[in-house]
């Protein structure tokens, strides 16, 4: 019995000590490794050209959480600020840019830029939005703080694509009428070079390694420009009506350039090494895929099918469509918050 009491005493002391130590650990834990605050779910924004709206989708649940009226006509392209708070949307038919508050999900400003406002891209510091106006052959520069137009830069005929270099020294503008890409020095706002690229060049995007990739939507190829030389260094045929490009991985393989090819109803994956361009995957999607965006990890692709009015989510590891979300009419462009 005495041994039993002793054992109980020892166990009790040990338990008390253990609890004290655990409590101490909890306090230390509080000080040094608080669990991170729950990050807001990433969002997918889809421009619906024929609905004049932007669909807002929860990127975890793949559910529509809102639809924003752009208060203009033919909502076409989107650019999201780095902090995710403001979304700039061009409206082709109105020649205007809508500014959308992503917290309240409403349009808070409408800025006249130019006839057939087509694409919008934010400068690397997000202080300006550059807008390509097809109908005026120029670029409008919008102050993203007060929404004033600060000036315009003449471009080639029918500017349709716009991207900045990694260091922000150059802006690249594709011109469907001239079949060229203008290289603009952002320090002087002068065109310093014009690069012939192909039939009806359209979309431009910056790749992870700093090269500029573009699609010749009037033809069947994509091309690559090296900002170090401002030369076209590669091109590759993927099928008629290549639309937009996003970069992602297939398991350990990549990054690959995933291209929406409108005529094939497919996303074509091309190895992103300009010296060794080759098709590495093909994924069947809905009708006339156009917009495409990758998640930051490069494991998911979000594809806007303008012919079937839906957004599809692709898993690049398995090349499978894992979700289909109905959106507005003629979805053209997709962007995703970080």
């Amino acid at each position: 019995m005495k041994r039993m009491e002793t054992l109980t005493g020892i166990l009790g002391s040990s338990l008390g000590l253990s609890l004290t130590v655990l409590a101490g650990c909890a306090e230390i834990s509080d000080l040094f490794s608080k669990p991170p605050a729950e990050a807001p779910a990433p969002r997918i924004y889809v421009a619906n050209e024929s609905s004049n709206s932007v669909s807002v989708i929860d990127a975890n649940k793949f559910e529509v959480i809102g639809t924003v009226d752009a208060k203009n006509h033919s909502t076409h392209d989107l650019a999201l600020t780095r902090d995710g708070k403001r979304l700039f949307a061009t409206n082709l038919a109105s020649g205007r840019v809508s500014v959308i508050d992503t917290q309240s999900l409403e349009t808070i400003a409408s800025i006249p830029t130019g006839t057939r406002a087509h694409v919008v891209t934010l400068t690397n510091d997000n202080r300006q939005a550059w807008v390509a106006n097809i109908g005026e052959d120029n670029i409008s520069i919008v102050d993203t703080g007060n929404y004033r137009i600060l000036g315009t830069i003449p471009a080639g005929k029918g500017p349709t694509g716009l991207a900045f270099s990694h260091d922000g020294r150059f802006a690249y503008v594709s011109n469907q009428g001239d079949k060229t890409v203008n290289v603009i020095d952002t320090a002087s706002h002068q065109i310093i070079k014009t690069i012939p690229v192909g039939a009806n060049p359209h979309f431009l995007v910056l790749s992870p390694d700093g090269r500029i990739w573009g699609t010749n939507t009037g033809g069947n190829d994509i091309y690559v420009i090296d900002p170090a030389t401002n030369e076209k260094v590669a091109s590759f045929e993927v099928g008629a009506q290549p639309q937009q490009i996003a970069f992602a991985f297939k398991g350990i393989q990549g990054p690959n350039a995933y291209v929406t090819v409108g005529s094939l109803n497919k996303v074509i994956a091309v190895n992103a090494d300009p010296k060794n361009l080759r098709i590495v995957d093909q994924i069947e999607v809905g009708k006339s895929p156009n917009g495409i965006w990758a998640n930051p990890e490069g494991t998911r692709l979000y594809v806007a099918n303008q012919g079937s009015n839906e957004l599809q989510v692709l898993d690049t590891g398995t090349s499978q469509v894992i979700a289909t979300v109905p959106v507005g009419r003629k979805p053209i462009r997709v962007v995703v918050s970080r």
Partner: protein
Amino acid sequence: MKRFIFALAVGSAISLAGPVARVTAQTVQVGTAQNAIGTLVVVRPDGVQERLQGKGSLKLFENDVLMTEPSSQALIEFKEGIQVALNENTSFKILSRWEKDKPVTRIIRLKHGEVWAKTGEGPKALEVETPVATASVRETEFNLKVQEDGQSVLTVIQGIVEFGTPFGTCPIRPSTISYGVRGKKCTKPAPTDVAPATSWASAVRQ
């Protein structure tokens, strides 16, 4: 049941027509052209032209393009009370920016030529855009000229004008002049005689 089907059809038609609450409409009058020495040509968005010669009250709408020919001048007034005079060989487009919970900002997109503007008292926002700079004003009187190369010359007569280019914004004070050039911030304001900037518009303002 028939009533239900009719209501459903009407509802579907409305939803297919898309949202109707657009922020600009070409049927909303924004001001009037009040006087022209020579001829003022107004080109509507559909290409239809109207002309004003002498005094009158020609209605102006969003997206109208106004043009004066050699030896012509004109005076217009926005419904907010902002007066704008066009010198000869001037062309601009009338636009506006809508922002939630703020008064509409009238915008003059000056392609070429010279304008004088007076905004009067109160919160009447006006911006005059040129290819290389924008003058943003409230309660001011100023003159802005665009040269063939796009260089913009701002003379401030009263009040303070925010003169911005993509490379920075400068406050320009009365009796000073500043230049906006592509690829640069506006020049440091320099003292100037404002009489030439006001005298050309005096005849058409009478």
